[in-house]
């Protein structure tokens, strides 16, 4: 595939990982140098980093769904200091550009997180997670255009690096949130994050997940993701990173046809660590569905 330009970053192909679904450091321990030699993604997006370290939610954190997965991981991470000290140096050695995904529980926290990475040459771009359904504020902030606009107006001036806003699907009007982000200077938007769900213990009837509710991902959400990517792509001019249930190059081609510039692979990597490379190859091979014609797009409006 010919290299592509994403916000000034050159990528070998349009397939990247979805934040929180691939830990390159742990994978290196499991698979050794072969991971680097055959790195499956054109860019690496790290798991959400928060200001303070987080243990994450109590176990159990996983529940399998029909053609999908529900998780309540709860954003465990070493916190900003731990990330800078331990993870960043290792991730900087990856053969692909690094995108750091951050989340703050207040605009002040996000400000400190963005500032900390603003001058880091190891970091190609920042992704703002305003959408994690496992954390109260994520849900609220990402569902409200004004909240997102206020956040960006504060952090946009702090860095020249591309800012990607990761949107939540648990909102009445996702395109409105995307437009607010674009208006306030976001360079791209990414969607969909997981959809809020729940499971009960088969025997006790109490909530199964330690976090009570969880986020649904995988093929079960693919059609929902495609609809949201489509409507957001029509609402904004900035690039869109599409994700949600991609398990084959065909699905990536569909998201691209719906307006996505890049496609992220998440849950499918759990079935095959090298899924990203396979999907990129399938995408290259696929006769891609043409981008939707003007007429099709008009038929969507009003």
């Amino acid at each position, binding site marked *: 595939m010919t290299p592509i330009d994403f916000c000034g970053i050159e990528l070998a192909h349009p397939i990247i990982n979805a934040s929180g679904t691939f830990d390159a450091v742990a994978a290196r*321990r*499991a698979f050794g140098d072969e991971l680097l030699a055959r790195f499956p993604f054109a860019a690496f997006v790290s798991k959400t980093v928060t200001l303070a370290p987080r243990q994450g939610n109590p*176990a159990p954190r*996983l529940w399998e769904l*029909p053609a999908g997965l529900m998780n309540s*991981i709860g954003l465990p991470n070493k916190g900003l200091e731990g990330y800078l000290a331990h993870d960043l140096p290792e991730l900087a050695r990856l053969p692909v550009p690094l995108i750091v995904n951050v989340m703050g529980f207040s605009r002040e926290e996000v400000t400190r997180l963005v500032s900390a990475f603003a001058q880091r040459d190891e970091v190609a771009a920042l992704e703002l997670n305003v959408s994690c359904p496992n954390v109260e504020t994520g849900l609220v902030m990402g569902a409200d255009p004004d909240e997102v606009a206020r956040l960006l107006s504060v952090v946009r001036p702090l860095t020249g690096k591309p800012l990607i806003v990761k949107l939540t699907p648990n909102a009445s009007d996702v395109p409105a949130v995307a437009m607010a982000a674009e208006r306030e200077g976001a360079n791209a938007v990414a969607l969909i994050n997981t959809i809020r769900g729940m499971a009960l213990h088969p025997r006790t009837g109490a909530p199964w997940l330690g976090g009570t509710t969880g986020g649904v991902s995988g093929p079960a959400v693919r059609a929902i993701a495609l609809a949201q990517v489509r409507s957001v792509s029509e609402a904004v001019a900035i690039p869109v990173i599409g994700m949600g249930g991609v398990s084959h190059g065909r699905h990536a081609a569909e998201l691209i046809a719906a307006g996505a510039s890049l496609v992220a692979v998440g849950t499918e990597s*759990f079935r095959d660590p090298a899924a990203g490379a396979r999907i990129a190859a399938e995408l290259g091979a696929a006769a891609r569905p043409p981008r939707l014609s003007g007429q099709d797009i008009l038929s969507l409006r009003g």
Partner: protein
Amino acid sequence: MSVAVDGRVQAPFGAREARVVARERHGAYTVLRCADPAGPRPQAGQFYMLRAAERWGGGADERPYLPRAFSVLRAPAESDELLFLVEDVGPGTEQLCALHEGARLAIVGPLGVGFAAPRDGRTALLVGGGVGIAPLALWQDQLGEDTVPLLGFRDGDHAAGAALLAEPKIATDDGSAGHRGLVTELLVRELDERSHVEVYACGPPPMLEAVRALCAERAVPAQLALESGMACGYGACFGCVVQTTGGYVRLCVDGPVIDAALLPTALTPGAGH
């Protein structure tokens, strides 16, 4: 065969194909004998993520979707074969137990950290409960020298699995084979008789917790092979955490074998057994 610093045998990157060359029933259990030409020889206690390469899904509640974790039961040194011991407890294991000779599997592994050699020449006591005997069989093969397998089962149908280890002492809940009662009762006897031992245990959480408490009380070193619900098996999802004295660890990369001294409890929530 490449062994990484922390003693784990690393896995080839990506899911690869393995073929079922034979399927054997041992009472309630199914042994899948698979050919894995592309993989290394695993260490006892390591595991693989398995799924059928075709039509994985469509069972109860439209599952399975994710691969499933299985310890290696046996990995004959001179062959490319991997043996897995499978108990049918849900849609995934049901489908695996139904696979015929020639069926293709998608596998990732070996994964995780296996058992470490007994400290200063101690005798290895292998304590297994139910399907938890699997990693102990390979450990017995690899240790070679004297080991003492203590195996507990629900009933006679499950006790058929005991034949997979050499010279086991058996306990069954219903007394249909060996000692009537818990395998931990056999362990107490052994600990009363022998002092210079190290315990290797795998089985249902209540059994592992009993073993942990017992060994803590008697200051006997123990390595426990735990279970927890897993999605990826290689550290990607952060879903398989268990609580240790040092906080949560991902069982798939920091385990599944954990030194009992690091565990406040072996009762892992949602392990499913």
